[in-house]
């Protein structure tokens, strides 16, 4: 037996050598092992998941194994939305909320980006302000709402302030992180070409930091939508957040879910808008 196996081995060794020598005649097909691990676009899948979930809830609430206390019928939610739209109340609620979102987020993100860039560029600003930002970031902005009411009044200004404050800190952190991550090699290249400081900032640092700033913007704007509900806790008669809070206090699940769905749609829209901006601004990445 051992003898036999040795002879087998030598045979196979021989055969390898043989195949090496006549490569062209005896080619073995090697299966392609690459591929996978790449995000592939399957846009319909998201809709399928939503569809299955909604059909399940609809069936459950209709048959009755999900009680009316736990989840409203999706069709009732849709009806509530249609009613809201046809009565014109949708715009009465949506317009003030969008105003608060746009103004608050604009103030917060503009200030945040400017300060973040300043921190990224100047050592003294960084040393002085990074600890302050770190101290402000974890403060629950909702807890400060009563204080903001005293500072800015119960009307729109306190709502802008809350949303601005909530978007400001994540924007600062994302921006100075992005400035720090700009390729040093590119900056040195600019210096060796004798570009002015201002030119380096404008042509290398800012475009290089843009990817990080925009992903920070995604998070900041999502926070702004969350804070919309908090901002409208105090003294708002109209607004999507006020609508949701009112539905909650009336235990009106259909209206509650309608309001939440509107916020979700707003979130999806904002996200895809940033996607478009990314495509445009980050063209240079190829």
């Amino acid at each position, binding site marked *: 037996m051992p003898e036999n196996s040795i002879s087998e081995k030598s045979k196979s060794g021989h055969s390898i050598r043989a195949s090496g020598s006549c490569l062209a005649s005896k080619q073995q097909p090697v299966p392609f092992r690459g591929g996978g691990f790449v995000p592939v676009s399957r846009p319909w899948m998201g809709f399928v998941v939503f569809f299955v979930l909604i059909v399940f809830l609809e069936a459950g609430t209709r048959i009755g194994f999900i009680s009316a206390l736990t989840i409203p019928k999706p069709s009732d939610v849709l009806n509530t939305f249609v009613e809201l739209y046809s009565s014109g109340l949708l715009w009465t609620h949506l317009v003030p909320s969008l105003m608060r979102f746009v103004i608050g987020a604009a103030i917060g993100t503009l200030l945040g980006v400017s300060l973040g860039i300043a921190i990224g560029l100047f050592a003294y600003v960084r040393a002085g302000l990074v600890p302050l930002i770190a101290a402000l970031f974890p403060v629950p902005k909702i807890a400060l709402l009563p204080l903001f009411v005293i500072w800015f009044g119960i009307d729109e200004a306190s709502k802008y302030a809350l949303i601005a404050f909530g978007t400001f800190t994540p924007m600062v952190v994302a921006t100075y992180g992005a400035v720090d991550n700009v390729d040093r090699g590119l900056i040195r290249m600019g210096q060796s070409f004798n570009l002015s400081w201002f030119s380096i900032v404008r042509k290398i640092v800012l475009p290089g930091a843009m990817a990080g700033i925009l992903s920070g913007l995604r998070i900041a704007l999502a926070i702004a939508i969350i804070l919309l509900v908090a901002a409208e806790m*105090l003294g708002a008669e109209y607004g999507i957040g006020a609508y949701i809070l009112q539905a909650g206090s*009336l235990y009106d699940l259909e209206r509650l879910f309608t309001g939440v769905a509107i916020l979700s749609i707003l979130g999806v829209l904002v996200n895809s808008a940033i996607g478009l901006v990314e495509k445009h601004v980050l063209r240079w990445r190829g």
Partner: protein
Amino acid sequence: MKLNRREALALMGGTLAATTLGTPAFSKNRKITVGALRFTSHSASFIALERGYFQEMGLDVELKFFQAATPMAVAIASGDVDFGVTAISGGLISLADKGAIKVIGGVLSEEQGIDGQKILVSDAAFKAGVTSPDKLDGKTFGMTTAGSSFHYMGSQIAAKEGVGLKFKPLQKVGAIIGALKTGQIDAWSIVPHIAKPLAGSGAVHIIGDVSHYLPNYQVTTAFTSAKNAAEEPEMTRNFIAAYSKGIADYNAAMVDGTLGDAGRAEMVDLIHQYVYAGKPREKAAKSIINGSMRLNPGVAMNVGSIEKQLNWFKSEKLVNGTIGLDQLIDTNYVKTL
């Protein structure tokens, strides 16, 4: 002493028999949870617990405290709380509409001749000439949430005076007080034990009584889950009986004063354990005595007032327009007024 198995079993059986036979049918010492707010209008809960009236009825009561009316209603619907006492809110009616809750009795009432809830205005509004409720036109009125009792009171006052009010939701009583003190809102209405100290500080002014606009207003009601009301009549009856005793003690000591100063002082001590517990006794006593409003004897229910409130919620489209009064209340347990 050594027991063999038969003796042990006999002993176990005997113990069981002794505990079941030795007590009347109702005292099974059932553990129940009662929801309350830290307001003097909830004193009957505290009295019935402290003086053992619940225990006498075989109810082992644990109090659970809430910040507002609607969360308590939701907790009853979810089964975490068995009985609750708060104002009728839109949330409560919606839950009754979904078949989760029934109102089984009435507790706090406005009664002419007894100091009731007050209408307050901020100092700024008062100086600007809002010295009586008919001058409230175009002013802002504070409320916790849409469909709360404040919303109801404000709109009833406005309707009767023919003035227009703007309602500002501020979620919490504390936030409303802050907004009123700083003049962010113009007016509000609240129970006297909160209204009087506020007015005493000079930051706000009392300009009228709620009872003038809503005579015999059934402010708070006792309610339970629809399941308890339908399937646990014995437990519900026992709760009502114990609660009635608490109410009787409270009315005698605090509203009618039939027990004299000593009886009142004793009652204040009891209530002080639950309301204004953080304040010293002398300060708290004033507020507790100030806040004495009549609680309905026998937890009697003022059906007329409840129906009026229900109709208002329906007309404001705060609740489903199809809910009927019989879906909201169960009149099997108490007298109706």
